[in-house]
């Protein structure tokens, strides 16, 4: 089959690899009908996350048709149309039973590495480093899905692939970020980053009853989308001071909850931005936490900081003093996708939201490397790239 493989920083090749097969008894093999490039894939593309190996198949947002199931998969069979959640979760451990699927104890064969770095290992993920399991990803024609009985959701007829694909990751990720804000009537929610996860965080904050949502970015097309699709007010951080503007908007209270949908590769004008860029380039810091600093300073006293953005390691100059003295609550984590798949599919079915609104580019799987480049550089107002296997052109 063809698969999009990682060979190093900014070096991807769509190449021929063996077809996947059932390895464990709870596996399924899925013939992929649609897959996507995630913002977190760009961290791998930029070579910022360790324990990648040349030849790793990328991709953790995918869906398709089951073509084979292992003997222990009782609730799925060949022919089922499914979306696959990006964390790999057993469904039986302490964490899965508490619905914290991305913290599964039993899905990372290389748990010891993650444990050394972080104290404990989270769940294994598709196509996202060997520290997180080394599982082949879904930017391919086929994928092996471990614990397929827990990690897939059946899709009824009548919904297009584009409407349901994002239940694999970015829709639940944005939704969990908003849910973590514990939104009360009258709340103002500020969202840093209007990429795909930011867009879903904004849309979900609306679904969950936020009074005002403020979207912060520098790309006009992303701010436009946040405004037109979810009715967000917008701040372009290259044009105005974010903290001052938020304080003016809220009469000095600050947003009740702030969402950092940017993560480790933040961009910021001026000296603060340069400082972290240099430190990251010199390997003195794993992430560039400029947004997180700003979020903590802007958040209302006693408010909530929700972090769906990916951070990798050890960061510098996080204002813990502000965090403590302002009595903030931090909520974060990789998304417990399996917890949200069913309720979010229901929202799509009821027509409360059509997640396909984020898609700006539709490419053939073979064009994945161009798609990464385009997404990274926001060329052609790119917000979300979906890839279609088995087609040379796709519209």
């Amino acid at each position: 089959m063809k698969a999009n493989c990682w060979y190093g920083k900014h070096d991807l090749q769509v190449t021929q690899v063996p077809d996947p097969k059932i390895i464990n008894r709870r596996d399924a093999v899925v013939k992929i009908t649609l897959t996507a490039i995630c913002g977190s894939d760009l961290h791998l593309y930029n070579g910022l996350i360790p324990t990648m190996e040349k030849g790793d198949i990328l991709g953790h947002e995918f869906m398709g048709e089951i073509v084979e199931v292992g003997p222990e998969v009782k609730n799925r069979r060949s022919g089922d149309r499914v979306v696959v959640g990006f964390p790999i979760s057993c469904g039986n451990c302490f964490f899965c039973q508490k619905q914290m699927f991305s913290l599964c104890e039993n899905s990372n064969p290389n748990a010891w590495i993650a444990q050394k770095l972080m104290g404990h290992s989270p769940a294994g993920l598709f196509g996202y480093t060997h520290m997180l399991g080394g599982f082949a990803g879904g930017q391919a024609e086929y994928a092996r899905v471990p614990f397929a009985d827990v990690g897939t959701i059946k899709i009824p007829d009548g919904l297009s692939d584009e409407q349901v694909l994002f239940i694999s990751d970015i829709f639940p990720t944005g939704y969990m970020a908003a849910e973590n804000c514990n939104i009360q009537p009258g709340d103002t929610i500020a969202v840093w980053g209007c990429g795909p996860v930011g867009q879903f965080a904004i849309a979900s904050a609306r679904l969950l009853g936020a009074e005002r949502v403020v979207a912060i970015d520098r790309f006009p097309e992303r701010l436009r989308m946040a405004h037109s699709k979810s009715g967000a007010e917008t701040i372009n951080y290259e044009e105005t001071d974010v903290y001052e503007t938020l304080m003016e908007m809220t009469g000095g209270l600050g947003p009740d909850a702030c969402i950092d949908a940017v993560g480790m590769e933040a961009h910021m004008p001026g000296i603060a931005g340069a400082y972290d860029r240099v430190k990251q380039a010199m390997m003195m810091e794993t992430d560039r936490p400029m947004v997180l600093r700003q979020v903590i300073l802007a958040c209302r006293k006693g408010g909530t900081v929700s972090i769906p953005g990916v951070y990798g390691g050890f960061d510098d100059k996080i204002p813990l003093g502000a965090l403590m003295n302002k009595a903030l609550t931090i909520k974060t984590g990789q998304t417990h996708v399996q917890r949200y798949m069913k309720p979010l599919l229901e929202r799509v079915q009821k027509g409360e939201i059509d997640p396909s609104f984020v898609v700006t580019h539709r490419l053939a799987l073979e064009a994945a490397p161009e798609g990464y480049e385009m997404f990274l550089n926001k060329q052609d107002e790119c917000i979300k790239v979906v890839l279609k296997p088995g087609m040379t052109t796709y519209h």
Partner: protein
Amino acid sequence: MTMYPTSESGRRFSESSLSVQRWREDRDGFSPQALFQDIDEESMARFLGWFSIGLGAAEVFAPGAVARLLGVKKRSALFGFLGIREITSGIGILTQRRPASWLWSRVGGDMMDLSLLALALASNRRTRGRIAAATAAVVGVTALDLLCSEQLSDGVGRDGSIRTGKSMHVNRSPEEVYNFWKNYENFPRFMYYLESVKVTGDQRSHWVVKAPAGMKVEWDAETVQDIPNERIAWRSLEGSTVTNSGEVRFERGPGGRGTIVRVAVEYRPPAGPIGAAIAKLFGREPGQLIKEDLRRFKQLIEAGEVITTEGQPAGRARSTSLKYDITSRRNAYAKNAFEKDEASQKEERL
């Protein structure tokens, strides 16, 4: 570029954790903590602890007498500092349950004393004899400190036996966990270096471990205690190639939250090349392999299978699954070390 399936199955040539152990006859139970209590290095450590405090007190309260004895100038401040260092080490050795790091602090202190004495030796011609005698005494104590520190350091006992223990939470009741463990023939499913375990009779079983270079290590073991849902203890029979013993406890988690499984093992690698290879396999961090065993045990009980990436596709000629697998890494290291030893022995014979 040519692509192959990344097949790694069957590459695990050996591994061992519960394998080679030593059993102490006079004990009905077994726990590594207990073993630390009445062996010789313990009393040696106690002696060194009191010695530290005595010497330290002399340096602090009678610096003049110490200086005369050593044949060096009286320097109250320096002696005070050295004395406090000695007393701290001594208290650490005597009060901590694992005194090894405090013993190592004595070794560091000895090095400091030796360099100070060397300086004194160069500058005090008149009392050379006494300083040399003091130096000889410190060298003697250093050797003792070093020996004792090494013996009490993690895992390795005086006779070369290795002991270690690890625990793991399993999200199942003690009854379920005990019943799974009770079936010894399950062991190779999560201890990959075991080739087989066969129940051979009442309380008796036969164990086969895959050792490097296609060798096998076998022994018979007996269950010495079996308290349902609480504890199983075992030991190898008299005359086994490898002496070993161990126990597993099943502790109900607080508030009924599953079970905390606690494994403690002790084993002594046999003499000869197999033993050397096994020692290398477990050498530096014997607990790590037990931990990986327990992780797989947990996966089997909770998830019903041990998840793997071996055999999945990738865009490369050689698999990297083994590269990140701690058990395989340890194996590869042991195999290498073993083959190197073999080669050098062959060379010697020639």
